[in-house]
């Protein structure tokens, strides 16, 4: 589904990603973790071209990412993304947030788009908020709207960049529940998160990054029980130990 081979990314002189190889199979759920600044966000932002890589190959659903705008837009329409800071459109209602892209990208008839949007709002458990503006919702509600907005494009893959780290603890749960359900339905997911409970229940594989490299990757059971590297061990002791 997603194939990264030998990917390098520089910001000016600074190399943010070093020789990244990662492949995500259809239906696979991968959790990416690692210390701050290790390049997690950069890596998943490469996959829908919010950042451009300088060398290596990225192939998503059989389409290679190059400067070709049409290919980029095609991939973006197939890859849903959820941001740490929600990024809902504040000038549109919740329902309009959900129908905007289907109407303008997929040319879905408005009525149909609205019906799908309502179904998705039911799925993320906030149908009663459809007519409100994002500014009137709680953080947890906003993030669930953001997930629904991405799902409205019927994506084949969902990318999450620390979807719960801007939320209060009681809201984290409601967002994670939605994500777990999504995983159970078989969505292909690539999730940057430090919610290790979520990683244990959902992830098929955990990818640990440090200083722009993928240091190790393995099943949650192996990774938590016996990290192979010192860096991973240190990281785990920091986030689990508090």
């Amino acid at each position, binding site marked *: 589904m997603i194939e990264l081979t030998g990917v390098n990314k520089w910001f000016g002189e600074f190399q943010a990603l070093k020789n990244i190889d990662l492949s995500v199979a259809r239906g696979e759920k991968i959790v990416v973790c690692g210390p701050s600044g290790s390049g997690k966000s950069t890596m998943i932002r490469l996959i*829908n071209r*919010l950042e451009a890589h300088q060398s290596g190959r990225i192939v998503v659903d059989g389409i290679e990412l190059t400067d070709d*705008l049409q290919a980029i*837009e*095609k991939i*973006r*329409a197939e*890859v*849903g*993304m959820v*941001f740490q*800071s929600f*990024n*809902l*459109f*504040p*000038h549109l209602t919740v329902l309009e947030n959900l129908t*905007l*892209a289907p109407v*303008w*990208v997929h040319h879905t008839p408005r009525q149909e788009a609205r019906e799908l949007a309502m179904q998705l709002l039911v799925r993320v458990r906030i149908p009663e908020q459809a007519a409100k*503006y*994002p*500014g*009137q*919702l709680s953080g947890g509600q906003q993030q669930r709207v953001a997930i629904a*907005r*991405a799902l409205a*494009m019927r994506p084949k893959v969902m990318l999450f960049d620390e979807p719960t780290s801007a939320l209060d603890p009681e809201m984290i749960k409601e967002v994670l529940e939605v994500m777990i359900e999504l995983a159970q339905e078989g969505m292909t997911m690539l999730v940057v998160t430090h919610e290790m409970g979520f990683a244990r229940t959902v992830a098929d594989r955990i990818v640990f990054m440090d200083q722009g490299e993928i240091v190790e990757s393995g099943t949650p059971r192996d990774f938590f029980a016996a990290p192979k590297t010192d860096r991973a061990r240190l990281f785990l002791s920091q986030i689990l130990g508090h």
Partner: protein
Amino acid sequence: MRWLRANLFSNWPNTIATLVIVWLAWKLLVPFFDWALVEAIWVASDTQTCRAAKGTGACWALIHEKHRFMLFGTYPFELQWRPLLVILILLALYVTSALRSCWRPWLAVAWMVGLAAIGILMWGGVLGLRYVENERWGGLALTLLLATFGIALAFPLAILLALGRRSELPVLRALCVLYIELIRGVPLISLLFMASVMLPLFLPEGMSIDKLLRAQIAMTLFAAAYLAEVVRGGLQAVPRGQLEAAQALGLPYWRTTWLVVLPQALRISIPPLVNTFIGFFKDTSLVLIIGLFDLLTTVKVSIGEPQWVGFGVEAYIFVSVVYFVFCYAMSRYSQNLELELARGAARGGVR
């Protein structure tokens, strides 16, 4: 009483300042009201009555006598219902555009229909309306037309310039910067002169653009440069995440700009936009120097007539009041809008 004591008489210096200001106001305002209202002459069949009262009472009879000229310029007298209708259409368009409940697609249609109707009414020549060449347009009607068309044409241009200035294409960006800086660095007066003197030199033999159109072009280009910077400020205030979220959904550049970025940018920039509109509205009076009969020119011409010489104060007070009414309306409107938006933002989002 409490408020008085707290704010005006809290201590000695404050009390003295209050008393001095009250005394000054008394000294200045009372004679003014005496002159402007009590002793004023409102209607007069000849200027003798006015001359007799000069110094003690204002001669509003001048305005009474000349108001048709000030409103409509030298538009044929019996046809002046047409520019009157135009002014009313414009006012109606301003008011509906100001109401946020009317911010719907039909408003754009209303503007297009309105502007077309205005063109037909002013020029005539169709639908049995007599043709009136635009040399004869003037007064308040001309001022409003220059301002409205100027802004209506400059605004889209300004948006394109602002987007161009933020573009990733170096050539496009450089061109937009050049345009904006060049036009902003030159006084409007010199642009008007250039338009009226130089533009004809560049045009091919036998082709001519009339004076009004030239002035309108110059003013539009001028306003666009200023508005572009205001719009750019708004664009910069839209968080980057908005753009990324739209792109991540697969929306192409123009859709993203049109549906996500611009609506937010323009809402943010409403107060500075209105500020620029106000400045531009007053700047239309500069067409006086190339011989167009806008409101200020008609007033100036009126008091140049022998029988009205010496009544400049009344005339200029009148013209100031007219400008003030329009500008104050715009300013109040922008303040209200700002409050409304602030309330929206307090709930966590700009609406």
